[in-house]
């Protein structure tokens, strides 16, 4: 796993009710690299935050530590 994925997984685990259900995968598609954040369905709201505020904070930190150009997508585990 990449450093970015590890760091993101740690940041998300700290802010949810079900840390053991958090998984982050770095996937590469034709459109570029994406960090897919999987969380427990009950934690989706927490990770996205009011008005997307928490997801934006996660993206900002990822961009800061070298993940510029890497998408961060939050997906619930049902999908």
């Amino acid at each position, binding site marked *: 796993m990449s450093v970015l994925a590890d760091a993101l997984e740690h940041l998300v685990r*700290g*802010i949810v009710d079900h840390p053991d259900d958090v998984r982050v995968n770095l996937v590469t598609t034709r459109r570029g690299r994406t960090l897919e954040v999987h969380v427990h369905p009950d934690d989706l709201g927490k990770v996205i935050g009011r008005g997307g505020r928490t997801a934006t*904070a996660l993206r*900002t930190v990822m961009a*800061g*530590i070298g993940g510029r150009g890497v998408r961060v997508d939050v997906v619930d585990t049902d999908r």
Partner: protein
Amino acid sequence: MVSETLQATGAEQEAEQAEREAPDQDVDRGGERSSDSEDLLVREGDIAGDYLERLLDLLDYDGDIDLDVEAGRAVVSIDGGDDLEKLVGPRGSVLEALQELTRLAVQQETGVRSRLMLDIARWRESRRAELAEIGRANADKVLASGQPVKLQPMTPFERKVVHDSIAAIEGVHSESEGEEPHRRVVVFPAD
């Protein structure tokens, strides 16, 4: 338009008031309440410290984490290597984002909303002096011209420091206007 500024100032006043009232509470309630809230702030710092230390480990960044309680809030400062600049980011944007996440991580553990302040590579400390000077310089401009001056868009932290520096000067006052992230301080001559 100024509600957010007033709110921030209100919170500061609350904290100051809490400090002033602490001795009375010691007499009335045997210090129970003030030591309880002090304990909570120390705990906030500990949780934040663990969260950030693990992040530094994963990123392999050098950094010393210092925990403190100042003016009724937990303060976490990280100092160390050049890598830390990445955690500050352009105009402190990454620092603000990381502070937001750290507050959420603290709240997750304590169940209480946190007002914790995070500083990295002394960015807030140095930026504070710069911003206070921007506030004073623009207050002088308004005093000389009698015309309002609009400043550059700033983060809530930056606006707060500018408002505080302008509030200390007679003959001018300031308000915030616009929506984030374009919200900015406007300096007015006193009516």
